[in-house]
């Protein structure tokens, strides 16, 4: 009998730390090719239209930035959570609440215009996401409630709340009963970065600036040290005089605030009104982005662009080779699975051992 055995390495492997995301991408592409083959499509054509085609013209590069912006913003916030051992799975809900809070201004007070509108909307978006994230933080700090469950379940609450708002009180009075809010006036729209070449709005700039700032905080300051220490060992954290409970709130509020900013940026920059669904699962995909980027905000920028490509590729493949856009969800799943599996290589060696079935085995 042959058995595959994992053996712990004395020290984590530097080579695999760098290459494991690449190996994961290769495995994902291979599995993807097999999937397309089973669907009866040519794997090379499918992978081309999935991963290469969207990068061939300026228009779709702008679309790539539009999709990458929320992923990078959310994943940057999540990196603090995951590094400090707070498993915030509810960024999707915090994203939605950010969108709702920020939209309140142009929807409820459409006559209020001017240069102050946009900054206020962004701030309210941050507050909305942060406030929503405070709920699982409070439950964890106060009652040791499992934050994975509480934050995840609040996503569904947020989705239904948004759905109710746009069908009910916030429905556009001039909208022929469509479940949509009124469209935002010009002062409430986040402008494009390079107006001439495409739609990409300032959300992408926010994402890059915030990711770089966060990288600095996490790697150079005492706060970042505190995040890592508490994540690695709460007891050593207590010995260092860091408070676990304060870190729970900090991590959730920062992650929620950034998810909220992503939410209002998306609504104000890419959509221009509230609809029953404002996110194709950015909050969940950002979890993959955070891990693919090794919880390092600079890595997250790269990972965000790759995952954004999987959204665009899904749309492109739908048109050019006629596969369901659910394929992009499958791709994301494959990628996360491969990333987590490949990370094993960093800490473990794979050994193949031949064993004899012993008689004493009971």
């Amino acid at each position, binding site marked *: 009998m042959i058995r595959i055995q994992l053996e712990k390495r004395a*020290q984590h492997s530097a080579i695999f730390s760098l290459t494991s995301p690449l190996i994961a991408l290769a495995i994902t592409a291979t599995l993807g090719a097999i999937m397309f083959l089973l669907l009866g499509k040519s794997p090379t054509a499918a992978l081309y239209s999935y991963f290469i085609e969207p990068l061939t013209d300026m228009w779709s590069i702008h679309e790539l930035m539009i999709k990458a912006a929320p992923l990078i913003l959310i994943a940057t916030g999540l990196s603090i959570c995951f590094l400090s051992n707070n498993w915030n799975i509810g960024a999707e809900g915090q994203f939605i609440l950010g969108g709702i809070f920020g939209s309140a201004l142009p929807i409820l007070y459409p006559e209020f215009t001017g240069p102050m509108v946009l900054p206020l909307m962004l701030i309210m978006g941050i507050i909305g996401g942060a406030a929503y994230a405070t709920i699982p933080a409070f439950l964890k700090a106060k009652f040791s409630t499992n934050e994975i469950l509480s934050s995840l379940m609040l996503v569904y609450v947020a989705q239904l709340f948004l759905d109710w708002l746009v069908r009910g009180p916030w429905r556009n009075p001039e909208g022929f009963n469509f479940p949509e809010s009124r469209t935002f006036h010009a002062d409430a729209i986040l402008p494009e970065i390079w107006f001439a070449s495409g739609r990409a709005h300032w959300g992408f700039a926010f994402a890059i600036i915030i990711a770089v700032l966060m990288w600095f905080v996490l790697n*150079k300051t*005492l706060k970042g*040290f505190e995040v890592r220490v508490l994540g*690695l*060992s709460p007891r050593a954290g*207590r*010995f260092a*005089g860091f408070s676990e409970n304060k870190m729970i709130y900090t991590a959730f509020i920062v992650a929620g605030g950034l998810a909220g900013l992503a939410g209002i940026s998306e609504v104000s920059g890419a959509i221009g009104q509230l609809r029953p669904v404002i996110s194709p699962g950015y909050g969940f995909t950002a979890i993959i982005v955070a891990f693919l980027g090794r919880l390092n905000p600079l890595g997250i920028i790269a990972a965000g662009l790759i995952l954004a490509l999987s959204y665009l590729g899904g749309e492109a493949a739908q048109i050019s080779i006629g596969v369901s856009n659910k394929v992009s969800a499958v791709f994301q799943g494959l990628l996360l699975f491969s990333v987590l599996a490949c990370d094993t290589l960093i800490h473990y060696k794979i050994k193949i051992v031949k064993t004899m079935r012993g008689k004493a085995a*009971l």
Partner: protein
Amino acid sequence: MAASEIAQRKQLLAVENLTKVFGTLKANDGVDFDIDEGEIHALLGENGAGKSTLVKMLFGTLQPDGGQILWRSKPQIITKPSFARQLGIGMVFQHFSLFDSLSVAENIALSLDASTPLSKVSEEAERVADKYGLSINAEAMVGDLSVGERQRVEIIRCLLQKPNLIILDEPTSVLTPQESDRLFETLETLRSEGKSILYISHKLDEVKRLCDRATVLRHGKVVGHCIPADETPSSLAAMMVGESIHTIRKVADETDKNREIVLSVQNLSQKPTGPFSTALKDISFDVPAGEVFGIAGVAGNGQFELFEAMSGERMQKDAAMITFRNDPIGHKSINERRKAGAAFSPEERFGHAAIATLSLADNILLSRHASDANVYLSGGILKIAKPSALRKTLSRIVETMDVRKSGENPDAGTLSGGNLQKVILGREFDRQPSLLIVDQPTWGVDAGAAARIRQSLIDLSKSGSAVVVISQDLDELLEMCGRIAVMSEGQMSEPQQASTVTRETLGLLMGGANAGQAA
């Protein structure tokens, strides 16, 4: 046991010259002993004497490096616990392996043949329970049971496998006196049926009361076999802790009464903080400048909780319970205490004193970011760490403590125990604290490093600081300390002068006798 019975006794298990080596440490060194049928045999020794290692080899979770195990006079190689169970060896561990959210019967069923129906398990369990006076409700959830009841579940589970030898590892360490009494009755019933019991303990009165014979271990070696009934608690204690003569170094002039009291603990009480935590009961002591104050005791008698209370990792109900240079600090955090001049070094090196996956420089920041913020942090409220300053401190510590490491600033996890301990203590010495509290400063550290660490602690006290050393190593405490107090079940004995106290007295105090009995 009368002489005529001894003649016809039947040997069940014998261990010959058993040796187990971990790195350079001989955990078991040529251990010999034997157990007869229908005997309760005590394995006596301090923490770290090698009791657990020996038992793990008997139960098949460790393999010996030398010597042999004879079962009914036949040599056996016990490769795994399932084989030990096949032979007829059962084990009840110190920490239970039960699922809280399952019923008693379900927990028991988990260790039996998968085909046994649950109803039959309950029936069997209750039959065994009745027979040995281990009353238990098989339908109850384990989570709702008391510690004593959980232990009964473990014992029933063990008995259902019909063992001939039952190993009990420190069974009374978690029990109330009443629960202990019931346990002893059960054990006596088992003995009367011809079953053998290997009873591991450091509690002398229990051993004397219950056990037919005893084997005493110290530093991995058998120091003697005896019949507890013929011994006194003092003679047992003397065997356990050793009587080797050593020279005591007087650290400071004990006649000087005018020294400033640096640390004063007054009536410190604290409830248990978790299921395996010990309550602290009315602890009071003073430590003056220039003294090394020792706290002895067997692990798990509240030393860890006392350390946490003194360090400020856990704050006190009443600020006056702990005073540092006339300042009540009971409500102050660990970093406020550090800023006032105190320093701490916990027992657990990884995950408490240091983090294995962080570099040594980062580990220096761990305990000193608040007390030496002006050195290691810049940028005002941004608090940007200064790697160059941390590395400078690191090389200073490496120099003075003679730390051996590979690379300039390796991860803490790559250092050996002794070298890491030098870094952890050096990190505090480097601050010249006026109070240093250390828990197990030389635990698992090789002899050379241990001597260096002790010397550094003595030097610190000579320079006028107060030093508190919590240790299970009596030799170490007698060598370094001015006075030694003993922790037992969360209480602290009267401090004894190290120059006059006998090991016997300390051993008795460790075994739970009060100072009056011991003196």
